């Protein structure tokens, strides 16, 4: 691996460490609080407590992908990184982040469920995006990695659009996407698509999602190859 790519990965890691610590501290605190609430629900008839660990992680990834453009790229260029190395390093970092977060999340859920089983806190449940995630540790890791990488990539593209084309350009792109989504919802095919994919799921869908994420990330090279430290307003 080139020195620049190593340097960029070190830069990204040291830069993200603080925000990751805050994120996981909050999420773990919520998990502990939720376990306490679930414990008190044991005596309540039909008492059940549901917590989603994945949704906050997905939101974090989406925001991270968007903010990376204006928070990280100008500094990377100032340090002397070339656009090609930046593209490679960010790709590796995004994928690495998705995998590590998935592994942590899936392990955390495994340990928590073992704990609730051992202590008899049967009222505590995790809420999943897809029923497939109730399966094995590995299945959860694969699904989470695919969803996270896809979200990071798509929001990174939006970040690049806003950075390079300004508020107007980014706004137009976001507006077109929202119109397509609204049209899909109104026509019903979008909702049907999601119901089919998430309620009657096949793991192959998530492999495809990961593939789409990789293709989307690949497209960002055309935005990055001439990027400068000046953000279009």
């Amino acid at each position: 691996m080139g020195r620049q790519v190593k340097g960029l990965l070190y830069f990204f890691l040291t830069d993200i460490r603080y925000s990751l610590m805050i994120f996981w501290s909050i999420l773990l605190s919520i998990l502990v609080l939720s376990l306490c609430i679930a414990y008190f629900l044991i005596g309540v008839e039909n008492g059940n407590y549901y917590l989603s660990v994945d949704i906050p992680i997905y939101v974090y990834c989406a925001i991270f992908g968007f903010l990376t453009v204006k928070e990280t790229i100008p500094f990377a260029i100032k340090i002397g990184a070339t656009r090609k190395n930046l593209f490679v390093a960010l790709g590796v970092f995004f994928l690495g982040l998705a995998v590590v977060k998935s592994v942590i999340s899936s392990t955390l859920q495994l340990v928590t469920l073992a704990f609730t089983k051992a202590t008899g806190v049967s009222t505590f449940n995790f809420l999943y995006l897809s029923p497939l995630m109730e399966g094995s540790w590995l299945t959860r890791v694969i699904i989470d990695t695919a969803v996270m990488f896809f979200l990071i990539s798509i929001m990174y593209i939006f970040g690049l659009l806003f950075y390079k084309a300004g508020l107007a350009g980014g706004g137009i792109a976001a507006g077109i996407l929202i119109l397509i989504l609204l049209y899909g919802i109104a026509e019903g095919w979008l909702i049907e698509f999601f119901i089919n994919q998430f309620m009657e799921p096949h793991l192959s869908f998530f492999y495809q999602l990961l593939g789409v994420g990789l293709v989307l990330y690949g497209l960002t090279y055309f935005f990055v190859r001439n990027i400068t430290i000046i953000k279009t307003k």
Partner: protein
Amino acid sequence: MRIEVKNLSKRYKDQEALKNVSFTLDEPKIYGLLGRNGAGKTTFMNILSGQILASGGEIVIDGENPFDNQRLTESICLIKEGDNFKKDLKVKNVLKIYSYFYPKWDQELADELIKEYNLNVNAKVKALSKGMESALGIIVGLASKAPITIFDEPYIGLDAPSRKRFYEILLNEYQMEKRTIIFSTHLIDEVSLLFEEVLILSEGSLLLKEEAEAIRDKACAVSGKKGEVEKFIQDKDVLERKQFAGMMTAYIFGDGEEARANGLSVEGVPIQELMIALTSRKEGA
């Protein structure tokens, strides 16, 4: 490294920051890049370091374009007056990151300078005072040992003794290993003796590019009684006149010998005064 600037232009929407600027920096020297605010200095340095693209013309370093060229980006280190480093990083992280990007990085020198400027390596950039952040920029710029090192007002908030020490270290490092140092500053009088060559930009155009010694010989300050000075400067190219209590000082282009022969007192013109006079003259034209 040979830097050729060919018809360089840069336009930001309606504003033209650089207008067909051309010159060549042939050899490793300490260059003073001077000019008033908005003269185009920072834009030039950003293009030179490959951080932005020119609107027209080009910069060629040893025959290659610096934009996105790894061989050149690791040979050019640009330290600006601020916003050089991410605020959440620790000083030690900043130094380590830069060490990956500059193959000639001198960690020993960085450690020495950290002690010299009394920086805490575990402190975050956002916890540093303005002067300490500037000191970190100076440390990175010097320790990078980049063949082209550019300082753009690198010492905002740095106190006078620290600035003096910086000049000493800079000169020392330069004497040990010659490299191209481009120095842009508004504290011209403080550093003018360091400059070997001076470039003055004004309103996006190159106004002057001369050896510092030649500039000093080219112009002089003539002082004496008002009437005598006025008579003497009648047929001279006068940059500026100052009068006080019947006495007059005039900055003129030309040799001071004739003035001395006329019984007038002759001194050199400080580069700062020369820059002010030249840029004012251009703006007035």
